[in-house]
């Protein structure tokens, strides 16, 4: 055990030494940019201080003493982010974070503030690395793209938001967006061709460094008799695998992905807003922007992150610093709505289809048993659109027309059904709203 720990610390130190040194260098560059280009001497000075701080951390790491998060903090994180409570805190936490970022975007788009936040995130990641569980998951070769994706998305979201905030400020003053200022035409050779060439060189270098530095994973030869635990889909489909917890495979694996694709294709045909074409803006297309971000950042990317880093053996929810114990047992007392209704509310037994029933009797039994769930789903998918059309979406309905409105509204309802089902599962252990195993139809 002791030898394992020593080897682990050597491995972590070998990673964290260069890691902190790179951060120190980046902060030194940032100090120069903040001071001389952005004329923010105070932020530049702070960046110099941060750079020295990372140099010190690097020195500790090189010497085999990388600093880390205190055990008490890691324990607290594990307690908070484990089991059903963990799922709730993770989902509500990421949602609250995205909402907070949206409403305080004018503050976060300042380069100095964003740089500070990035430093804090990278420092937290570095300090977390001394946990073997965290290090093993984050540094797993196939998980590196996901870590990259998180940081790249953070950067590009910041970049887009800063441009959108600037354009929205200009629009308030009656000025055109920044993208319309430079209408001058230039020749593609050399400006664009050389830009493309530089990008190709940069991508090639990144790819070569990545390929030399990190071996592609290769486990032992495929064997059907040995099922790994957990068995995970490729990382980009982990959101779909997570959906399998809340929906049957026909919904999570077929219908919902098809609707995601259909919804993406439908975007240009249901977005009737003529503003915001070809330039970054949030204020001029708030509804479209928010719906897309909910779908992409909240329901796609955060579910992938969840599926990668927090789902362990038996698809149980594990804290970020918790060992993936294959014997961890979590009680799953999920109950169908029909069970709640018949047993808990009516105090009767649940009607079942028996083998001696005729087809008609079986249908009547199923309708009787699942009546409440069917009515609720009909209200949700059929009843809500007209109600919304005459209330909150009234203006939209008038401008969009019946067909476009119904397509938009149903896509929206399917999208919001996922977080609703997640919350119902975690809070009241609801499994299915309708449960018809006789024809594999559960929702």
């Amino acid at each position, binding site marked *: 055990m002791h030898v394992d720990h020593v080897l682990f610390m050597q491995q972590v130190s070998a990673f964290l030494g260069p890691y902190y040194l790179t951060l120190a260098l980046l902060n030194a560059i940032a100090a120069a940019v903040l001071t001389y280009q952005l004329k923010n001497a105070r932020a530049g000075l702070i960046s110099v201080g941060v750079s020295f701080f990372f140099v010190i951390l690097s020195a500790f790491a090189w010497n085999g003493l990388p600093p880390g998060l205190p055990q008490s903090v890691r324990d607290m994180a594990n307690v908070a982010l484990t089991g059903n409570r963990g799922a709730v805190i993770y989902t509500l936490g990421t949602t609250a974070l995205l909402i907070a970022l949206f409403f305080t975007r004018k503050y976060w788009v300042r380069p100095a503030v964003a740089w500070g936040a990035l430093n804090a995130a990278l420092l937290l990641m570095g300090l977390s690395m001394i946990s073997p569980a965290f290090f093993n998951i984050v540094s797993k070769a196939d998980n590196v793209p996901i870590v990259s994706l998180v940081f790249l998305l953070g950067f590009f979201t910041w970049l887009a938001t800063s441009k959108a905030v600037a354009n929205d400020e200009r629009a308030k003053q009656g000025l055109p967006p920044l993208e319309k200022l430079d209408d001058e035409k230039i020749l593609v050779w050399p400006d664009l061709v050389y830009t493309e060439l530089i*990008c190709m060189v940069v991508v090639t270098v990144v790819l070569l460094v990545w390929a030399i530095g990190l071996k592609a994973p290769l486990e032992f030869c495929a064997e059907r008799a040995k099922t790994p635990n957990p068995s995970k889909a490729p990382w980009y489909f982990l959101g779909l695998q997570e959906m399998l917890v809340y929906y049957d495979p026909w919904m999570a694996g077929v219908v919902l992905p098809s609707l995601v694709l259909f919804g993406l294709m439908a975007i240009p045909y249901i977005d009737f807003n003529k503003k915001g074409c070809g330039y970054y803006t949030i204020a001029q297309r708030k509804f479209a922007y928010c719906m897309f971000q909910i779908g992409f950042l909240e329901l796609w990317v955060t579910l992938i992150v969840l599926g990668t880093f927090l789902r362990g053996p038996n698809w149980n929810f594990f804290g970020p610093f918790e060992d993936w114990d294959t014997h961890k047992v979590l009680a799953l007392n999920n109950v169908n709505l029909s069970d709640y209704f018949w047993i808990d509310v009516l105090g009767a037994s649940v009607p079942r289809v028996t083998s001696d029933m005729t087809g008609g009797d079986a249908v009547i039994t199923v309708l009787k048993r699942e009546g409440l769930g069917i009515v609720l789903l009909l209200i949700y998918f059929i009843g809500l659109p007209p109600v919304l059309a005459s209330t909150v979406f009234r203006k939209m309905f008038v401008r969009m027309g019946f067909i476009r409105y119904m397509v938009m509204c149903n896509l929206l309802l399917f999208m919001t059904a996922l977080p609703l089902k997640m919350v119902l599962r975690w809070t009241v252990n609801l499994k299915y709203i309708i449960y018809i195993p006789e024809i594999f139809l559960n929702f």
Partner: protein
Amino acid sequence: MPSLGETIRNSQVWKSIFRHPMPVDRRNRIVVMLTNFFLHLHPVSIKKQGIALSYTWCMGGVTFFLFLVETITGVLLMFYYRPTLQWAFHDIQELRDTVSLGILRELHRWGGHAMVITVWLHMYRVFLTGSYKPPREFNWVVGVFLLLLTLLLSFTGYLLPWDQLAIWAITVGSNMARATPVLGNEGPGQQILNVGGIDMITNASDARFGLLGARIVGEETLNRFYVLHCVFIPLVVSLLLAIHFWRVRKDGGISGPL
């Protein structure tokens, strides 16, 4: 006495390939875009803001470049790889341990992951700038198909190393197909396709069987995924890319306010 470079550039062979002098003046910078096969995908001139990296992120171009990298490294990998149960895993081990320039597989695998990320970022940028709005709606739809095909390219390639990671990731991924409504053995409405009391949709005729070529992930699946990964999907992607690029030109040029 002309230099060697001048001699080559003045030779008949050079002039037969490149029909213009070096593009150092305005006229030839225009001519080069019209007469070079690879460059003629671009227009001659473009709005200055349309090439700002902070605006475009260059993610469409990077994705296309990664597709080319994947094609080249993929072809090289095909020289060493045989898609059979007997050889698949062995050949990958050989690639890792004995073949010269042992990063070929790494370049291909990480390039594939990177392509998934960059195609998402490209879609993200196009949405955030509202560049799918008229007249670019159709090109957005083509882009969604390309995004899907990128995921399928990666998914089909995932199986080829034939290790535990590969077979179980594909097993998990493809299990969902058997729950396809009507067409899946365990999907709702499976009983609809029933002739004379005989189910037409069984585990040997459903959507999952169609995807795998067998009831389980096996040699037929490996062959099927290999052909999809190396031939069919890249061909469809190439066709759609051509349409995508052509429509960029026809729909008002590179993104920007119209």
